[in-house]
């Protein structure tokens, strides 16, 4: 069974379009994340949800909107796609609970390679 899954694996779209990426984890974890990895492999946190509550909201254009319908799912919707949005987007999850003094191991999904033409 896949622990953290994402769909789609590849996404090719035109500038200006709106697209969504879905993520699901079956690990029973409380926290989920979205990361963006650019062409230089720089892995940057975008958002984090703990039990459906937004915890981390980094400096990301407001065209990006995460949504967590339940603690096992975290989706990412992107409006008005731009060329610079091309990257690999990784979803991850961890057992982290609010107020915990340590950061738990994060388990990454396979990634979604987004190409904006």
């Amino acid at each position, binding site marked *: 069974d896949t622990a953290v899954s994402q769909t789609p694996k590849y996404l090719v779209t035109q500038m200006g379009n709106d697209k969504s990426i879905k993520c699901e984890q079956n690990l029973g974890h409380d*926290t989920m*994340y979205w990361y963006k990895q650019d062409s*230089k*492999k*720089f*892995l*940057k*946190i975008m958002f*984090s949800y*703990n039990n459906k509550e937004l*915890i*981390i909201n980094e400096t990301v254009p407001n065209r990006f909107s995460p949504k967590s319908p339940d603690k096992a799912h975290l989706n990412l919707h992107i409006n008005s796609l731009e060329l610079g949005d091309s990257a690999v987007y*990784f979803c991850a999850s*961890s057992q*982290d609970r*609010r*107020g*915990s*003094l*340590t*950061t*738990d*191991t*994060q*388990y*990454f*999904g*396979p*990634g979604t390679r987004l190409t904006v033409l």
Partner: protein
Amino acid sequence: QQPVQSPQAVILREGEDAVINCSSSKALYSVHWYRQKHGEAPVFLMILLKGGEQKGHEKISASFNEKKQQSSLYLTASQLSYSGTYFCGSGSGNTGKLIFGQGTTLQVKP
């Protein structure tokens, strides 16, 4: 602030050793090491929570010097399967936020 890793890239022959360093200008509360193979997701290697802690996983081990705000990853008798990009992550409590270094690309040749 992003941890800084060194070297940026290293090429080894099978059986050789390598050290990857990770340093931060801010206090490191925990250090997480991941390896990412080309086209794949980052995979967890180990986490160090306390200064002075050392951990090992087969021939890969790491140390954490809290005072110096540094961690090092040691790869001993490298194998072809060790090839990939290694990331250190600086962890902070409360939010689970991990800030990753820029990565070190390791290539092991036969």
